[in-house]
């Protein structure tokens, strides 16, 4: 292992960490603005022009707030839980190709930290570990609402892991590889080559599962403000609470990268337009998360389970079987 490779990897890791923790902060600003416009309000307006510095103000507040560890909690687990959410979100980013490779000063840069040949499995697995954050946080804090939220986390995790895995199986069968770069090359021929045209059902199922795994609004019952306060976050304060947020928003960004890479052609043929196209797709999927939050009511836990086991999972299995039959004959 040569030194240049080591230095390059470290630089990539630091750049991804910095960009996406900053984006997670700005993501909260976008969310408040988009929600505000959809509900005919103005959103944050007072701090800086159009409330842009609100992010900085929130950051200062979170960092300087007292870090309270309540008396009856299991202190060690309580302290680790938010770190798990944030850390696993960024660990998942290691296998995501953010851009096509480009050359700077004669040095070719691959904007992916580790091109594992099992990229998708790794990303899904590590993102799933991220749900241990809410689970542990909920179980460690001696609070009934937090415990309810932990129970819901376990339920959502166990069920929607199945849907996302099965729905993604059909595209994997078509491409014949688990690496996201291979997925991108498979669809490099242009819009007509995108997997979404041959696998529309898998696309929709994976999209729905993405909402469940990031805990966004139709499936926001892990931390549903109107019935269980803030769920696992009820007992948290200061930056520990903020870490949960960074993890959630980073996950939203990463899953918004993964969906276009698998189904919508990714960065295409690798030109600058392809890269900009990928950014556009990511922006759309991120916006769609916010849009849904403004437009849809939450579902009940039993409806969530009903949807998963009686609708989505059978559909995903049928999709896999049909794809297999079509590929065989």
């Amino acid at each position, binding site marked *: 292992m040569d030194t240049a490779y080591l230095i390059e990897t470290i630089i990539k890791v630091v750049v991804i960490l910095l960009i996406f923790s900053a984006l997670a902060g700005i993501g909260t600003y976008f969310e408040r603005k988009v929600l505000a416009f959809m509900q005919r309000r103005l959103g944050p307006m007072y701090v800086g022009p159009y409330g842009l510095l609100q992010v900085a103000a929130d950051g200062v507040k979170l960092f300087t707030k007292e870090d309270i560890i309540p008396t009856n909690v299991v202190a060690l687990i309580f302290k680790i839980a938010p770190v798990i959410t944030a850390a696993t979100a960024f660990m998942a980013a290691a296998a995501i190709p953010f851009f096509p490779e480009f050359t700077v000063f004669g040095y070719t840069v691959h904007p992916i930290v580790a091109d594992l*040949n099992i990229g998708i*499995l790794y990303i899904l697995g590590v993102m799933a570990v991220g749900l241990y954050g809410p*689970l542990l946080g909920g179980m460690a804090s001696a609070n009934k609402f937090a415990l309810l939220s932990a129970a819901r986390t376990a339920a959502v995790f166990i069920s929607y892991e199945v849907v996302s895995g099965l729905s993604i199986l059909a595209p994997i069968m078509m491409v014949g590889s688990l690496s996201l770069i291979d997925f991108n090359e498979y669809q490099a021929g242009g819009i007509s080559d995108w997997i979404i045209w041959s696998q529309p059902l898998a696309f929709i199922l994976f999209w729905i599962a993405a909402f469940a795994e990031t805990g966004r609004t139709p499936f926001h019952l892990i931390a549903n403000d109107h019935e269980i306060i803030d769920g696992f976050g009820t007992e948290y304060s200061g930056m520990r609470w903020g870490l949960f947020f960074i993890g959630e928003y980073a996950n939203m960004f990463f899953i918004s990268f993964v969906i276009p890479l698998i189904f919508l052609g990714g960065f295409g043929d690798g030109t600058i337009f392809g890269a900009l196209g990928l950014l556009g797709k990511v922006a759309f999927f991120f916006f769609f998360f916010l849009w849904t939050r403004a437009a849809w009511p939450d579902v009940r836990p039993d409806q969530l389970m009903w949807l998963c086991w009686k609708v989505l999972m059978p559909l995903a299995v049928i999709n896999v079987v049909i794809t297999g039959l079509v590929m065989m004959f």
Partner: protein
Amino acid sequence: MFEAIAFYLFAFLTITMFFITVTTSQALYALTALAAGMIFISAFFFILGADFLGAVQIIVYTGAVMALYAFGMMFFDTTREVKEKQGNKYIIIGLSTLAAILVVVIFATPMVSENIVALYPAIEGVGNTQEVGLVLFTKYLVPFEVAAIMLLVAMVAGIVLAGKKMDLSITLMNDEDLEKEKNKKVLS
């Protein structure tokens, strides 16, 4: 050198985690250490170049331990310590030491006598996932299918045991039917 560092680091971490799992009397510590240990084991697969098995290890065991958490949640107040019934300590320590030594001997003897040969050596230029598939669908096809049938049996049994009133859906019921259902006797 990096491989050696990674191996000893994760060996230490894994053993520490499982030690905590066995010794602690706090259910939450035990479960969390178990989950962490299971995830750290995947590092060995990655070090050996078996990426696919490593990722599968993470996915399968996070789900499995998550189910254990659900049981922990139902049976204990996880924020309190569990009062354990202490038996004869010497017998426990003696038996566990004996079992550990036996396991080490069982795995170490073929290695010492150099009796281990790779029956299906890795094929050059074939991806990790494909290799697992090749072995799984040729040499180990029968165990694979038997495992599948066992899982099917377990699934059917689970549905039969837990499937009372499966045809009723609170989601699809209207309010009158819901009231009727509530007023029914629990028996029957």
